[in-house]
């Protein structure tokens, strides 16, 4: 094809163009589609009404996660426990019926493979480098950690993908976030992405697909790369990407839905071509010095409201732009914070370790390393750990992490989205604070009136021990 140097994003895009239209939009082929119970019922309904089949059922994988309670799913006699909330039950039942009716593979709530869609996709080897991956969930960007072009879509688009295996899209612009140097001790992938969002803003990536570049990312494990790409959407970007490499291939090899035998070799040979060419042009570039990144925490109700843990709650007057000043005041009122307060003096009553951002085995290990031999503070009323999938849960139990959490005063739950969003029974009470490893600190996100501080798993664990936001480096 073109001899012009291309970015990784452009390479993946070009490989998926079915046809280009005169107006510049393109019909893009979708390789992998993940479906959960919340954003799919209206799409299946529309297909039924119009008598339309699913074009390629084997390219879609369905798993329930958002609504599921995280309490035990089978009773003592091994029978499934009914879901108490009738609306949640109806939505879950709809997926359970719709998926098989359209020939789609469905992972039931009681299967050990069940988990949050964005944990399950990579874990099963369903998500692969260089593929286009979509899901009716904005954190689909997560799969970019494997070098896939992955993004969230709405329900009409879910229907469009089911019926045609394509989407009509306008190409985004490539943006580069380059990180120079190494992260300091105690500074995690989550701290880095929070820092990046704080730097470029919640709309800074709007209209772009971000590629994360630099040694830092090359040295990261896949779990860490998934954490970084997961939050690309919080910077407004359509997707985030990290070029696949040997770390990626080692992670995928042998996974149930990954290619096998000669096809594996062919796939790896292809994946090795997936990187931005020397001289490829990015429409926007941001450079970040890794040494400037400290353990990060949010103070407000937008993920861009980030300060280092050693920082203070800002004054609204600190912001140059008028609308940001108004927004900051609103955030502070909602969060019940006084400007100038050191972040380490902010007391918390709840701790949530989980979500598609930070519920993989490494996240649980990082939190457990801090909690080992310690206990949560008395003012922490509710602390839960929700593994990202049944497989993560089983692995953690094998390593004895569950004991560490339970002895530290945490509840050890079944996999699902849990307190990341107020849709299932796990909610943060109104007016209370939560140190949370999730990705959104929006008003009411963790329950009506709940106050969220986004942090890394190790920082959440440290906060549980002291009962206030805490610099995890005091523990290492």
């Amino acid at each position, binding site marked *: 094809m073109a001899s012009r140097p291309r970015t990784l994003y452009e390479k993946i895009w070009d490989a998926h163009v079915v046809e280009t239209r005169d107006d*510049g939009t393109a019909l893009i082929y979708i390789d992998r589609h993940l479906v959960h119970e919340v954003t799919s019922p209206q799409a299946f309904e529309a297909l039924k009404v119009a008598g339309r089949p699913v074009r390629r059922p084997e390219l879609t994988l369905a798993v329930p996660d958002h609504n599921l309670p995280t309490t035990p799913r089978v009773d003592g006699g091994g029978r499934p426990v009914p879901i108490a909330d009738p609306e949640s039950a109806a939505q879950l039942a709809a997926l359970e019926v719709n998926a098989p009716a359209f020939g*789609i593979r469905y992972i039931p709530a009681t299967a050990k493979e069940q988990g949050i869609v964005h944990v399950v996709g990579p874990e099963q080897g369903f998500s692969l480098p260089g593929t286009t991956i979509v899901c009716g969930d*904005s954190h689909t960007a997560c799969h970019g950690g494997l070098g896939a072009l992955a993004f969230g879509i709405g*329900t009409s688009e879910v229907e469009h993908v089911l019926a045609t295996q394509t989407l009509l899209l306008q190409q985004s612009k490539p943006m580069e976030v380059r990180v120079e140097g190494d992260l300091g001790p105690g500074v995690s992938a989550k701290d880095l992405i929070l820092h990046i969002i704080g730097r470029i803003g919640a709309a800074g990536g709007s209209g772009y697909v971000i590629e994360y570049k630099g040694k830092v990312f090359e040295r990261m494990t896949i779990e860490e790369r998934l954490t970084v790409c997961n939050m690309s959407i919080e910077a407004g970007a359509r997707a985030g990407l990290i070029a696949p490499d040997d770390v990626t291939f080692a992670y995928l090899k042998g996974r149930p839905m990954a290619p096998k035998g000669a096809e594996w070799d062919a796939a790896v040979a292809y994946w090795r071509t997936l990187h931005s060419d020397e001289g490829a042009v990015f429409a926007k570039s941001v450079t970040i010095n890794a040494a400037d990144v400290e353990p990060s925490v949010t103070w407000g109700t937008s993920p861009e409201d980030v300060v280092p843990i050693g920082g203070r709650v800002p004054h609204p007057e600190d912001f140059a732009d008028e*609308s940001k000043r108004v927004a900051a005041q609103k955030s502070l009122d909602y969060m019940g914070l006084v400007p100038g307060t050191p972040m380490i003096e902010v007391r918390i009553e709840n701790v949530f370790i989980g979500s598609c951002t930070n519920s993989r085995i490494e996240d649980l290990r990082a939190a457990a390393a801090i909690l080992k031999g310690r206990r949560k503070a008395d003012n922490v009323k509710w602390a839960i750990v929700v593994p990202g999938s049944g497989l993560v849960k089983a692995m953690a139990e094998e390593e004895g992490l569950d004991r560490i959490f339970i002895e530290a005063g945490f509840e050890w739950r079944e996999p699902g989205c849990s307190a990341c969003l107020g849709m299932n029974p796990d909610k943060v009470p109104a007016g209370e604070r939560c140190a949370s490893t999730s990705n959104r600190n929006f008003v009411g996100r963790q329950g009506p009136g709940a106050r969220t501080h986004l942090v890394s798993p190790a920082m959440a664990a440290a906060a549980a021990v002291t009962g206030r936001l805490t610099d995890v480096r005091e523990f290492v």
Partner: protein
Amino acid sequence: MEPLTRVEGRAIPLGLKNVDTDIIIPAKWLKTISREGLGQGAFEVLRAEPGNVFDDPAYQGAPILIAGDNYGCGSSREHAAWAMLDLGIRVVIAPSFSDIHSGNAVKNGILPVVLPQEAVDRLLEVAREGLAITVDLEAQTVTTPYQDRFTFELDPFRRHCLLNGLDEVGLTMARGEAIGGFEASRTAAQPWLMRGTAA
């Protein structure tokens, strides 16, 4: 989907920046399996505040909403578009929109109008006076009784779909042959890409 050519009416002067889809429709309303009735939960958190613009009698039934930067950011939930539609909103004017939400809006017959901040500020003033604003999609203009006239861009395909109320799924299904051709060459060259859950 209902065609949209010209909308004339009062506008709700929200003006707020970073209005995320959790604000437009909180998660507890997402447990529905239908598209109807979500207006009840729309902007619930903002409506809990006394004197909010949504419950102000001056803006009841207004078909236009004016917001700040990054409207519809956050969750991909299309319920946000359904909730707005249920309130009777057909046009949102803002300096910028999230990609996902503006796509969802168009697919439900809601027009996202991007205008520079100064123009948005001016329209907010006019809206606060309770005067009608006219949005003309044919001409791609927003006008006020004070003779303000702002032009906006919209990608031609979206404009075409909105003007004619077209169903995108049906349009793409008509391209089945091209899609089939793409799949055939895919299956020949990189069969593992086509295996999915059947691997």
